[in-house]
C-alpha cells in the first residue's frame, strides 16, 4: 500500500508526547524517527530522508518554525510535507507556521484517528509530488535526448546537403535555424551538362519531422542531378518519395531552379513557395515566378504535375528565392514584416549587390527582440559569364568492374521519346567506362546536342533560330511541347560502341556515338569534319536559314572541337561522332 511504511520524523521535546506520537505512528505501520528538538531534527532529516515531518512549534535549541524554514531552504526540491504539532490556536501563530513552510497542523491533544488521516492525506500529496518530480525529470531527459537526436540528424543532413556546390560561392544564401534542425532546406549542385541546379524547400514544422523529410529530399536531389536528370524528373521523384513515406498533412513547399549558361536558359518549377524574383538586367525590372503547383508530398504520383517553365537568361540577371518566413517575420507586437515591405525593398535595391544584406538587415531590425516564429531563408543566384565549376572530381571512381569493349543499339519509338528522356540512361552507361569519366561533362553535352537535334529538328521539325529572341525562346518551347504531344510515329536510334586500346604510354579508347532519326533531314551531302577543322564546316544548302539545324551554329563548332571526327550522312538525319581518349589526357581535363 502506498500510504504504509513511511518514514515519519517526529520532533517533540516532551518525552511523554513523543512516546504517544511514536506509538500512534508505529501502530499505523510506519517507521517513527523520534527526536527532541529542531537541531536533532535537521540532522535526522539528512540521515533518514523522511517522507513526512512532524514538528512541535515550541522546542528548546531550535523551535519548529526555524526548523521548517531551514528544511525548506536546504531542500527546496524535496517537497516533503511538514505538519506542525500545536495547541496554538490564534490566527497569527497558524499563519506563521504556514509561512515558515508548514503544510498543515495536528492539534493537541493528539487524536489517533485525526493523526492517521492526516498522514494518509499527506502521503498522497507526497506521492503526487514524487510522481511530478519523476515526470519532470523524465521530460527533461526526453528533451535532452530529442535535442541530441536532432543534432545527429542535422550533422547527417549537413553532410548530405553540403556535398553539393552550396559552399562554392555560386549562390549567396542565408538560413536561420529556428529549431536545432530548421524547416527550410537548401541544396545545390552542378549537373553533368554544366547546369546549376538549386532547390529551396520549406517543410511544414521544424525539428525532427522536417529532418526526416529533408533526408530523402536531399539524397534524391543530389543523386538525380549527378546522373543528369532535369528538374521535372527530380520534382516528380521527390514528390513521390515524400508522398509515399511522409504522414498526411506533412508536406514541403519548394522551388527548383536549373540554370544553363551555355544555352542561356533558366528552367523553373515552383510548388507552394512564394514567387521567386527574376531580375532582368536588360529591362532593369523583375519577372515574378509564381507557384503553379502544389507542394511536394501532397499529390500522388499520378496527379502530380511537373510543369516546368523555360526562360532565357543573360549575364547580369539575378534570381532571388525565399520562404514565407521572410515576410511572416513578426515584431515584438506580432506585426508581420509583410510582402509589400519586402517587394518595396526588392524594387528599391534592384540590381544591387547589397540587396540581400539590406533585406535581411530590415527583417532582423523588424523582428527586434521578438521571437522568430519561422525560418528565415533567402537565396540569391547571380548570373555570371563564367561557367559553373564541376564538383566532385572523384565522383563515380568507385573501385569496381567496368565496361571495356562493347556496343549497343538503343531504338526509341515515338511512344517512348514523347515522354521519356533517355539521356541519363545513356550517359549512365558511359559512366561505366573508367576512361570516359573525366570527360563526362563534355560527352553529356555532345550527346544532348545530338539527341536534341534528332528530336527537335529531325522529328519535330523545329527551327533553332526561334531561340534568338526572348519571345521566340518561349515560343520554341511551347511549340516543342505541342508538337511532341502530337507526334504519332517515328524512331530515334542510338548506336554506341566503345573499344579500349593500349600503347606504350598507357590505356586509351575510342567511343563512337551515332544517332539516326526517322525525320527527313535537311538535305546535305555527306560531310566529314576532323578535329578543329572548322573551315570545312558545311554551309547550308537551303536558302531558308530558319530550316537549318543547330549544327550550323555553336553546336557543330562544339562537336568538331571536341571530337576526333564528325560525320553527317545525307539527307542529314544520321550523325556520328568519334571521341578518342587516353589516360594521359585525363589530368588536364579534370582541371577545367
Amino acid at each position, binding site marked *: 500500500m502506498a500510504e504504509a511504511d513511511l518514514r515519519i520524523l517526529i520532533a517533540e*521535546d*516532551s*518525552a*511523554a*508526547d*513523543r*512516546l*504517544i506520537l511514536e*506509538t*500512534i505512528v508505529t*501502530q499505523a505501520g510506519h517507521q517513527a524517527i523520534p527526536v527532541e528538538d529542531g537541531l536533532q531534527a535537521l540532522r535526522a532529516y539528512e540521515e533518514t530522508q523522511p517522507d513526512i515531518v512532524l514538528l*512541535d512549534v*515550541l522546542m*528548546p535549541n531550535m523551535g519548529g518554525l526555524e526548523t521548517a524554514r531551514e528544511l525548506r531552504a536546504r531542500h527546496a526540491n524535496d517537497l516533503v510535507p511538514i505538519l506542525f504539532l500545536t*495547541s496554538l490556536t490564534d490566527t497569527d501563530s497558524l499563519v506563521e507556521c504556514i509561512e515558515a513552510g508548514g503544510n498543515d497542523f495536528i492539534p*493537541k*491533544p*493528539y487524536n*489517533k484517528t485525526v493523526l492517521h488521516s492526516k498522514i494518509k492525506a499527506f502521503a498522497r500529496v507526497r506521492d503526487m509530488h514524487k510522481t511530478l518530480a519523476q515526470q519532470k525529470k523524465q521530460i527533461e531527459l526526453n528533451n535532452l535526448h530529442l535535442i541530441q537526436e536532432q543534432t545527429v540528424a542535422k550533422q547527417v543532413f549537413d553532410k548530405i546537403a553540403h556535398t553539393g556546390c552550396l559552399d562554392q560561392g555560386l549562390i549567396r544564401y542565408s538560413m536561420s535555424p529556428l529549431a536545432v534542425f530548421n524547416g527550410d532546406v537548401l541544396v545545390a549542385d552542378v549537373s553533368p551538362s554544366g547546369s546549376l541546379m538549386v532547390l529551396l524547400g520549406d517543410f511544414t514544422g521544424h525539428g525532427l519531422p522536417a529532418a526526416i523529410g529533408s533526408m530523402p529530399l536531399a539524397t534524391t536531389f543530389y543523386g538525380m542531378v549527378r546522373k543528369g536528370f532535369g528538374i521535372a524528373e527530380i520534382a516528380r521523384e521527390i514528390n513521390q518519395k515524400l508522398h509515399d513515406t511522409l504522414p498526411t498533412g506533412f508536406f514541403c513547399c519548394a522551388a527548383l531552379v536549373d540554370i544553363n549558361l551555355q544555352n542561356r536558359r533558366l528552367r523553373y518549377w515552383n510548388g507552394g513557395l512564394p514567387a521567386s524574383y527574376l531580375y532582368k538586367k536588360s529591362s532593369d525590372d523583375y519577372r515574378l515566378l509564381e507557384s503553379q503547383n502544389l507542394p511536394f508530398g501532397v499529390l500522388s504520383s499520378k496527379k502530380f504535375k511537373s510543369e516546368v517553365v523555360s526562360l532565357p537568361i543573360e549575364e547580369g540577371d539575378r534570381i532571388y528565392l525565399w520562404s514565407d518566413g521572410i515576410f511572416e517575420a513578426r515584431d515584438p507586437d506580432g506585426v508581420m514584416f509583410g510582402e509589400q515591405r519586402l517587394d518595396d525593398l526588392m524594387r528599391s535595391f534592384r540590381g544591387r549587390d547589397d540587396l540581400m544584406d539590406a533585406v535581411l538587415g530590415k527583417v532582423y531590425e523588424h523582428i527586434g527582440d521578438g521571437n522568430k516564429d519561422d525560418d528565415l531563408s533567402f537565396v540569391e543566384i547571380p548570373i555570371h559569364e563564367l561557367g559553373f565549376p564541376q564538383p566532385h572530381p572523384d565522383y563515380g571512381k568507385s573501385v569496381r568492374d567496368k565496361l571495356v569493349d562493347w556496343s549497343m543499339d538503343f531504338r526509341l519509338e515515338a511512344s517512348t521519346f514523347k515522354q521519356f528522356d533517355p539521356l541519363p540512361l545513356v550517359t549512365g552507361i558511359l559512366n561505366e567506362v573508367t576512361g570516359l569519366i573525366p570527360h563526362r561533362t563534355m560527352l553529356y553535352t555532345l550527346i544532348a546536342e545530338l539527341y536534341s537535334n534528332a528530336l527537335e529538328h529531325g522529328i519535330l521539325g523545329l527551327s533553332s533560330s526561334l531561340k534568338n529572341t526572348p519571345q521566340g525562346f518561349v515560343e520554341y518551347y511551347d511549340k516543342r511541347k505541342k508538337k511532341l504531344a502530337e507526334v504519332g510515329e517515328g524512331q530515334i536510334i542510338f548506336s554506341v560502341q566503345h573499344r579500349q586500346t593500349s600503347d606504350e604510354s598507357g590505356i586509351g579508347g575510342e567511343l563512337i556515338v551515332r544517332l539516326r532519326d526517322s525525320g527527313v533531314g535537311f538535305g546535305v551531302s555527306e560531310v566529314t569534319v576532323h578535329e578543329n577543322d572548322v573551315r570545312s564546316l558545311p554551309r547550308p544548302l537551303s536558302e531558308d536559314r530558319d530550316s537549318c539545324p543547330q549544327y550550323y551554329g555553336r553546336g557543330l563548332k562544339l562537336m568538331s572541337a571536341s571530337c576526333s571526327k564528325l560525320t553527317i550522312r545525307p539527307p542529314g538525319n544520321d550523325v556520328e561522332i568519334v571521341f578518342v581518349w587516353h589516360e594521359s589526357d585525363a589530368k588536364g581535363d579534370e582541371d577545367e
Partner: protein
Amino acid sequence: MSKFDEEAIAGLRELLGERFKVMVRAYLDDCTQRLEKMKAALAEHNLPAVRQEAHGIKGSCRNVGVLVLGDICAEIEKQAHAGDATDLQQKIAAAEQEFAAVSIKFKDYLT
C-alpha cells in the same frame, strides 16, 4: 469539573499497553523539570522562558488527560506571553500544588 479526563487516560493505556508506564514516568519527570525551570525563570523575570515551560506542561497535560493542571498552565502561558507578571508566583505555586495531586494519582499507575 473533573480534574482528569478518564476516558483519554483509558485510551492511552489501551494505545500504549506496556509502554503506558514509561509514558507516565516520562510525563512526571518532564513536568517536575519544567516546573523547576519555570520557577527559576520567573525569579530571573524571564517571561518568555516562563511562557515556553508553561506551554510545554500544558501540552503534555492535555495529551495525557490532566485537565486542571493543563488549564492553570494555559493561564500562566497566556499571562507570560502578555508580559504580565502580577500574580504569576501564586499561579505557579497553584500549579505545583495541582501537580502534587496529579503525581499521587499517576504514581498508582506505576505499581
